[in-house]
């Protein structure tokens, strides 16, 4: 494979050159194609399709929707039309980059300006120039090169009727990290991250399975503690049991998660710090009302419900008043 310096030297040789000879529109601007376009896009403006209305308008007759500009010069159905690929330097650049390890392509920007309305009978010619090819860029999709082209559209008299700039990215796709990738494409819904279970927390999650929110309690001094710890910070006893919370409490603080998306979590998602009436706090989701309605001090009541086919979690609902 060629090295980066050689690739970039070869790419930069294209800048300022045309992608090939001017392309002539296969058909003159015509009412049939205008009608198909308007039907497909649901554009009901009569000046494009109704001859009588158009005659009485400022245009004095039917005109084409300006946004059809590029449509006039698009190559026909590829299996039916002769291939002129070899004449197009854009194809050449694409092959060069694919060979250098940048096989993917995505269009990123397009701007057009329309200088006059096109009318049935106009014949359109287009010429495209490589305006710029970037240095190597790291993007969210992958590392690659931005290619900017500018196409000038002219009529049969050689007068410019509009232009278009187009930017594509040719890139090497990023390897998607395992943790961030969606679950395998089964019909199964992605699931939330599991709590790692160990000596110091398994009993609490077993409580959730049993339908209980447990609060660890020191057997010697009765101090409640959450999250649980193996030793009492007040009296250093390692003897403990638990009480079962009534699940009633109030919102001490809360956030609404919007970004980044993580499989298994439906966004926006309210995560709140709940102060239980027993006195300890815990983090859990508030559902049963839109996240925007959650307020500090709001009374909530827990229900232990399935988060998916396997994991149960305490969910807090606005308390009935």
């Amino acid at each position, binding site marked *: 494979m060629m090295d980066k310096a050689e690739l970039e030297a070869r790419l930069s040789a294209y800048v300022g050159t045309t992608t090939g000879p001017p392309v002539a529109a296969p058909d003159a601007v015509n009412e049939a194609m205008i009608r198909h376009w308007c039907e497909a896009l649901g554009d009901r403006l009569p000046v494009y399709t109704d001859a009588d209305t158009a005659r009485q308008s400022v245009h004095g007759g039917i005109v084409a929707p300006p946004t059809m500009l590029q449509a006039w010069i698009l190559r026909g159905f590829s299996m039916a039309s002769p291939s002129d690929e070899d004449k197009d330097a854009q194809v050449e650049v694409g092959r060069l980059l694919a060979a250098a390890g940048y096989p993917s392509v995505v269009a990123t920007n397009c701007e057009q300006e329309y200088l006059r309305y096109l009318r049935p009978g106009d014949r359109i010619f287009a010429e495209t120039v490589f305006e710029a090819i970037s240095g190597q860029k790291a993007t969210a999709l992958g590392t690659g090169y931005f290619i900017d082209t500018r196409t000038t559209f002219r009529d049969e008299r050689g007068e410019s009727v509009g232009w278009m700039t187009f930017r594509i990215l040719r890139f090497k796709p990023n390897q998607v990290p395992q943790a961030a990738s969606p679950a395998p494409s089964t019909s199964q819904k992605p699931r939330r991250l599991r709590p790692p279970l160990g000596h110091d927390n398994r009993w609490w999650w077993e409580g959730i399975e049993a339908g209980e929110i447990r609060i660890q309690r020191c057997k010697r001094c009765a101090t409640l503690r959450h999250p649980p710890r193996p030793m009492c910070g007040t009296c250093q006893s390692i003897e403990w049991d638990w009480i079962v919370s009534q699940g009633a409490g109030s919102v001490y603080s809360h*956030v609404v998660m919007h970004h980044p998306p993580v499989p298994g979590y439906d966004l926006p998602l309210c995560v709140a710090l709940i102060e239980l009436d027993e006195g300890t706090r815990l983090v859990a989701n508030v559902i049963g009302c839109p996240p925007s309605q959650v307020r500090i001090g709001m009374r909530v009541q827990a229900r232990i419900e399935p988060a998916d086919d396997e994991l149960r979690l305490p969910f807090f609902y606005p308390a009935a008043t």
Partner: protein
Amino acid sequence: MNVQPLQDAAAIVGIGQTEFSKNSGRSELQLAAEAVRAALADAGIEPKEVDGLTTFTMDTNDEIEVARSVGIGDLTFFARTPYGGGAAIGVILHAAMAVASGVANCVVVYRAFNERSGRRYSTGVSEPLVTADAIHWSWYMPFGLLTPASWVAMYSQRYMHEYGCTGRDLAQVAVSTRKHAVHNPNAFFYGRALTVEEHQASRWIAEPLRLFDCCQESDGGCAQVIVPARRARAMKAKGALIRGVAQAAGRDQENMTSFYRPSISYLPEMDLVAKQTYAMAGLAPPDIGAAILYDAFTPVVLWQLESWGFCSRGEAKDFVRDGNLELGGALPCNTHGGQLSEAYIHGMNGVNEGVRLIRGTSVNQPKKNEHVLVTAGVGVPTSGMILGQL
């Protein structure tokens, strides 16, 4: 009288860094080696003179790998500091203790990562091993509280509720760092200012935090060279004297999620760092000419202004109005653009800027630079220091 053996005992005599980017295109070890080499060149010290190295526990670059890469020979001291960005000044503390005690004569501090192109912290935690730390995350992962922004947002909502602080107040912090980054060619936002309206229009990440309340995830490395103060005075490179330095964890501390304290609207660990650092340096808030306050997120700057006594509790929102964090303000802050606008190198780019402020070489140099405060990560056991003129 309190004996303070570390007061004025050590100095930072060299700073180095790589460029900051979204894709360094090289290994973390290479970034570390380049940053260390640059810091040594700045100090005018040969690699073979280095006998100590310190870094973060989160750093992937082994001391011995860095030493071999840079041509550092025998090491008599190495130590690591835990808790993410909270280590940023802790590593300096360790280096200062080592050179003050004679365990080492020249310690290099380094931190380098591909935090943008490699493992991004913003993608959240997903701990496979069942350690105490993994159990700690089990209280948050199933509920979707997975990212640094989300943890900071939980404190922020409560703080804003208690003190009437608004998103527009947070915007003041973001706007001030951008004003500084506009003049800093090393900054992501070089030449790109920000308005309060643009901040307010940016999308939510973890409500109440918006995109522009969050720092720039970055690739890069930074390093500093620490030697005894008496040696620093004889050196050609202008050094920054470590007047006071401290690290602290607070009561009922968790790693980013200390949600179970009676109040979650202030930082007990940072209060403790401030108390110790001022005591060691024999200084008070009015003595501080400029500050580098760790700014992974905008609200953490407000809380630190309160911890370090620049304003009363809950009044930081008033302090940051009227450009007080900008050049010419009451406390020029994050003159490099901070982690919000220069780059996020776990606070270590801020240490380099702190030394530049003392040297008088910042691109946004305030006039008053007798003493400069530099702090480390927020929400974790943390650290801080006051630098002064040699």
